[in-house]
């Protein structure tokens, strides 16, 4: 049976539902018996939901409009300038 450390190591895959049936079984056996890991799993799952739904660091509308205006004006200026002359061959890397 898994110990708590192995459960933690597999937690990310379990939360993202990217886990093989065999490991899922082992994990679920452990979770059924270990309240600490169950709490850890449950609260981490809730954390993800909360973070996803929070839409944190939302761009305020006024800032969005300001950024767009500045970008538009810079792009128009750039278009008015003649393109810079290129000299030499472009360097190649792979």
């Amino acid at each position, binding site marked *: 049976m898994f*110990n708590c450390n192995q459960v933690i190591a597999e*937690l*990310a895959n379990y939360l993202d539902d990217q886990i093989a049936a065999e490991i899922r079984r082992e994990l679920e056996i452990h979770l059924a018996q270990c309240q*600490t890991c169950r709490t850890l799993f449950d609260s981490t799952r809730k*954390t*993800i939901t909360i973070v996803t*739904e929070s839409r944190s*660091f939302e761009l305020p509308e006024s800032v969005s409009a300001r950024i767009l205006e500045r970008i538009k004006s810079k792009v128009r200026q750039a278009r008015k300038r003649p393109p810079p002359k290129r000299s030499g061959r472009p360097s190649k890397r*792979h």
Partner: protein
Amino acid sequence: MSFLPVVELGETFAPFAFLRKNFGFIPNLFRAQTLLPRVIEAETRIAESVLLTERVLSRRQKECLLLAISAANQSTYCVTAHWEMLRTLGMTDRQLRQVTIDYRRAGLSETDQALLDFGLKLTQHPTSVSRQDIEGLRGHDFTDEAILEAVLVSAFTDFVCTLSTGLGATPDFKPRKVSLKRVAHRSEVNPAGLHTHDKPKPFLRAVDLSSDTFPPFAFFRERFGFIPNIFRAQTLRPDVVEAEADVVRTVLLTDDVLPRVYKEYILLVVSAANLNTYCVAVHCEMLRALGIPEDQSDQIAVDHRQAGLSGADIALLDFALKLSQRPTEVGQEDIDGLRRRDFTDGQILESIVMTALTSYLNTLQMGLGTVPDFEPKHVLRAHVSSGADVLESARTGDGDVEITNLLPTLEGLNDRERAGVAAGALEDPDGDLVARVKGGDLEAFEGLVRRYDRRIYRILMSVTGRAEDAEDGTQSVFLKAFEQIGKFRGASKFSTWLTRVAINEGLNRLRERKNLQSLDEDGVNHEEEFRPRQVQAWEDNPEQLYSKTEMRGLVERALMKLPSMYRMVVVLRDVEQFSTEEAATALGLRVPALKTRLLRGRLMLREALAPYFVGRGRVPQPRV
């Protein structure tokens, strides 16, 4: 031809004559190492025993493994070389292109597909390889000898990919560009097993060889005092063990160019980043034999920057880590950085070879499931040093997320392939707008700004943690995208490309703003925070406890408590809902490193949010 100077060894140099005889030419990979002929000799012997000697797997099967893994490793040099070799073995360009993009649709037999499934899992997700995968191969009638060869060829591929990237070797033929549209199959991305470190015995059958009759074992016993299990597990191929013993003798145990202790440091640090408990345990022990106290090698495995090493030593290990974990970002500037630290070209070459050798040994060990020779102590700690490299790049300035690495080029593609790239662009939801912007349509560009300004702002907030940087940065990102859109060819989605531009911008701003001390502060106590402390049960519907605005405030404050390398991963994955693979590509990380960081970020965030959401019941502390 490469980052390092080349000296003339002449056609009579035995390994060159051997290579010309077997390949028809002398690959640049070997020409690029002429500063150290002894290294070329040892590598040629490995190539001979692993690749050229045909016992069970055919040369074509081996070359297919090499090609598919090289494509997954994004090694243009190796893809080009093995494409060409497979052409001479009768495969068509069309088939070969398919092997690099999606080998399941390359007309290979089921058996050969199973072989590639295994090789890709072993090299891309090594910690998830288990006995079950070996059983899977046995189910396809692969013998233990054949499986050993598959493990060896996979490890050898990691070796040559790391080597060619570190050396900057020029492809020997018209370059075959690696497609970023490669299909990762579920067997590869969805681990079917768990690599535990307490296996009772290795995966494969081995025969007993005695150090009295088998000279390589006598050599190991004499030099190390024991015969490492990794070599005992390969006795079905004594010729390979002999070649490996030669590499150990001529590369690891020599002291004339790069001192031995540096080589052990590289083995330790890279193995820790690869989460290879076996190799960490072995090389801690080797360092102890060299007089390095246990607690220092312990600390080097955890975080070499905090282990009391000199600036030059740290720079060398930073380079080895970058080469092994973020190979596509390595360039001439990294070599020049080491030269400025007074490393000679020979020493730089040897550190590249050692990094490649570590990849070889790590892959080999994971594929063989060998039992540790010593008590492993570093399993969880190894996660710490593997998770520190993005911030390190911000700190040293040498790991800048290089946009050009993601920009595909049509160079070296034939017409059919060009058409494939063009067709790929149509699948990009932004393909139409991008095409119009390239044609000079400013309104289309505004459309892209409106579509992505929120995402870019959020990413910049997550990297820089400051609203004013995020606002200015968003503007800069779009202006840079506008300037460079002509170079965007569509091998990745436009949105992924733009995300990388944003991360790059954010890291530059962070670097300008913070000095070294404050970045160090950002990274303290990661290890302690990793272990969950708050283990009280949460309320059933925590999201109903606060208003949306309050909730956002709580989450933002909690996110700001995270070091930015974790914050970035959580924001990309859980707020922007990138897939694991997309987030890894955007951050220039391998999938396992991304997953490690994501888990730690989520656990740290959970810890920070817990006080607001715990219920009344208490539960005991974790059993760890």
